[in-house]
C-alpha cells in the first residue's frame, strides 16, 4: 500500500482549498445565509411549521445536503480534471499507485472538503435558527456516505469531461434541479399525489429524507430505504470508477 502516495494526493488537494478559501468555504456560507434570509425568514414567516418542526429548522438538512452534493461533485470533478487539463496526470499514471489509492487520495480530499463545508453550514444555521440532531450517529453516517458517493460521482464526471463546460453541466443541470425538487425546501407530502409518486424517482429524495430523519425523526420515505438507496448509489459509482480504471477510459491511450 502506497500510503505516502495517498497522503501526497490528499494533502495536495487540501492545500488547493487553502489557496481558494473564498471560493471553497466562504462562498457556500454566504449562499446558505442567503437561503436562510429568503426561505427561513421571508417565506418561513408564512409557513410556521412542517410536521411540527419550524420551517427554518426544517430546511436545514436540505440546505446542508444541497451544499454537500454540490461540493462533493465539484471538488472531486475539478480535482481529477485539472491534472488532466494541464497534463500533470502523467505523474499519477507513472507513479506506483493502485487505482484504489488514487481514488482514496482524490475522493478522500473531496469528501473531507465537502464535510467541512457541511459542518460550517450547520454552524452558520445555528446563528439563524435553533435545531437539534436526534440521531447524531445516523447523521454522520449519511454525511459520510453521501459525500463519498457523490465525490466518486464527481470523480467520474471529472474523467468524462473534456472541457470546463462539461465539468459544470452535471452539477448545474442535474444535481441542483434534483436537489431543489428532492424535498430540500418542502416535504414531498405537500405535493399532489401524482407528483409525490413522480418524485420518488428522484434519488436525492432518499438522501434528503434520510438526512432529515437523523435530525428530527421526520422522513418522507422509510429511513431504511434511504440507507439502501444511498448504498446502491455508492456501489454504482464504485463500479463506474472501477470500470474506468480497468479500461483506462479517458485516462490512458
Amino acid at each position, binding site marked *: 500500500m502506497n500510503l505516502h502516495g495517498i497522503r501526497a494526493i490528499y*494533502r495536495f488537494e487540501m492545500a488547493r482549498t487553502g489557496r481558494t478559501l473564498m471560493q471553497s468555504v466562504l462562498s457556500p456560507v454566504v449562499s446558505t445565509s442567503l437561503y436562510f434570509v429568503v426561505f427561513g425568514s421571508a417565506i418561513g414567516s408564512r409557513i410556521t411549521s412542517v410536521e411540527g418542526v419550524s420551517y427554518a429548522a426544517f430546511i436545514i438538512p436540505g440546505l446542508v445536503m444541497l451544499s454537500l452534493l454540490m461540493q462533493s461533485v465539484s471538488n472531486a470533478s475539478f480535482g481529477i480534471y485539472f491534472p488532466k487539463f494541464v*497534463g500533470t496526470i502523467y505523474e499519477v499514471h*507513472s507513479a506506483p499507485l493502485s487505482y484504489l489509492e488514487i481514488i482514496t487520495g482524490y475522493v478522500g480530499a473531496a469528501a473531507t472538503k465537502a464535510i467541512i463545508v457541511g459542518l460550517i453550514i450547520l454552524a452558520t444555521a445555528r446563528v439563524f435558527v435553533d435545531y437539534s440532531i436526534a440521531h447524531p450517529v445516523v447523521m454522520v453516517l449519511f454525511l459520510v456516505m453521501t459525500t463519498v458517493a457523490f465525490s466518486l460521482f464527481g470523480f467520474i464526471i471529472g474523467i468524462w469531461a473534456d472541457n470546463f463546460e462539461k465539468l459544470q453541466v452535471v452539477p448545474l443541470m442535474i444535481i441542483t434541479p434534483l436537489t431543489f425538487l428532492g424535498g430540500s425546501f418542502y416535504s414531498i407530502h405537500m405535493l399532489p399525489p401524482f407528483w409525490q409518486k413522480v418524485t420518488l424517482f428522484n434519488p436525492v429524495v432518499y438522501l434528503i429524507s434520510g438526512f432529515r430523519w437523523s435530525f428530527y425523526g421526520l422522513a418522507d420515505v422509510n429511513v431504511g430505504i434511504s440507507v439502501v438507496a444511498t448504498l446502491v448509489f455508492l456501489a454504482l459509482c464504485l463500479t463506474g470508477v472501477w470500470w474506468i480504471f480497468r479500461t483506462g477510459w479517458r485516462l*490512458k491511450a
Partner: protein
Amino acid sequence: MQTDSIARDAVTDPVIVVRGLDKTYEGGFKALKGIDLAVRRGEIFALLGPNGAGKTTLISIICGIVNPGRGTVTVDGHDIIRDWRKTRTVIGLVPQELKTDAFETVWNTVRFSRGLFGKAPDDAYLEQLLKDLSLWDKRDAKILALSGGMKRRVMIAKALSHQPMVLFLDEPTAGVDVELRRDMWTMVRRLRESGVTIILTTHYIEEAEDMADRVGVINKGELIVVEEKTALMQKLGKKQLRLQLHEPLSCLPQALSAYGLELNGKCDEIIYTYDTQGERTGITALLKDLSVAGIGFKDLSTRQDTLEQIFVELVTEKA
C-alpha cells in the same frame, strides 16, 4: 533481425528489456512494431527518431502511462504489468512538454512528487536536489512565475525527487538556452556516475553524439538499429578523402571510374568516399592511379560523417 542480435549483445547487465513490443492506437495507427531492446544498467542510451517515430510511445509504455499492446517489458528484472509497483518505483520521467501545476510552489510540487512515488519525506535530499539544479532560491516561487528553462529544471527535480534508478528524459533540452543545456548535461553525467541509467530522446543529435554510450534509431515504430555510438559511427559513417587539385579538371578520367570519385562544384577538388571498416580503404591505389593519370594535388583532408548524417541516412533509407 538486426535488433534481436543487438539486444542479445546488450544483455550483459540489462536494466530494461523490451521484447516484441507492439502498440496500436485506437483508429488503427501502429505506433510500435515488434520492438526488441535491452538497455544496460548505468549507461546513457539515446533514442533517436523523427517526429511520430514512436519514441514517446515506447517511453510512455515503459513508464506505465500508455497501455502496451503485445510483447513484454521488464525493468530491473520486474515485469511492468505484473510487478508494476516495483517497476514504477525505480523509474523517473521528464516528459517532453512542460506539464506543471502553475499555482504550486517549487518546493511543494517536488515534495508532492516524492510522496507520489511512495517515498517518505526527506527534506535534506530535496534541498540538495534543488541546489544542484539551481532551484533552491526559487523554492517558494510559484511555478507560473518561472522562466521556461526554470520550469524544465523543476520537471527534472520532480523526476529525481524519488531517487530513481532509471531516468527517462524525453526531449529535455527542447527550448532550453545553451547555458542551461550545458548545466543539464553536466547533471546527467553526474547522475550516470552515481549509477542512474539514462534514456534520452533528443532532436539535437550532436547532444546524443556527445553524451550517449549507445544509440538506438527508431522510425515508423521500428527500431532500425541499436549500437555503441562509436561503433555505429565507424560502421555506418562514411569517410571522405578530399584532394585539392593543382588545376581544375573538366571531367574525371575513365581509368579512375572504379573509385566512384566525385568532383566538387568548382571541379578543383576530388572527393573519394570510402569504407573505414573495409580491409583496404583503396587510398594508396587511388593516389598511385592519380599519379599515373597525371593529376596532381596540393592538399588533402579527410572528413567523417556526424551522427546526424548517419541518422538522416538511416531514416531516409527506411522512408
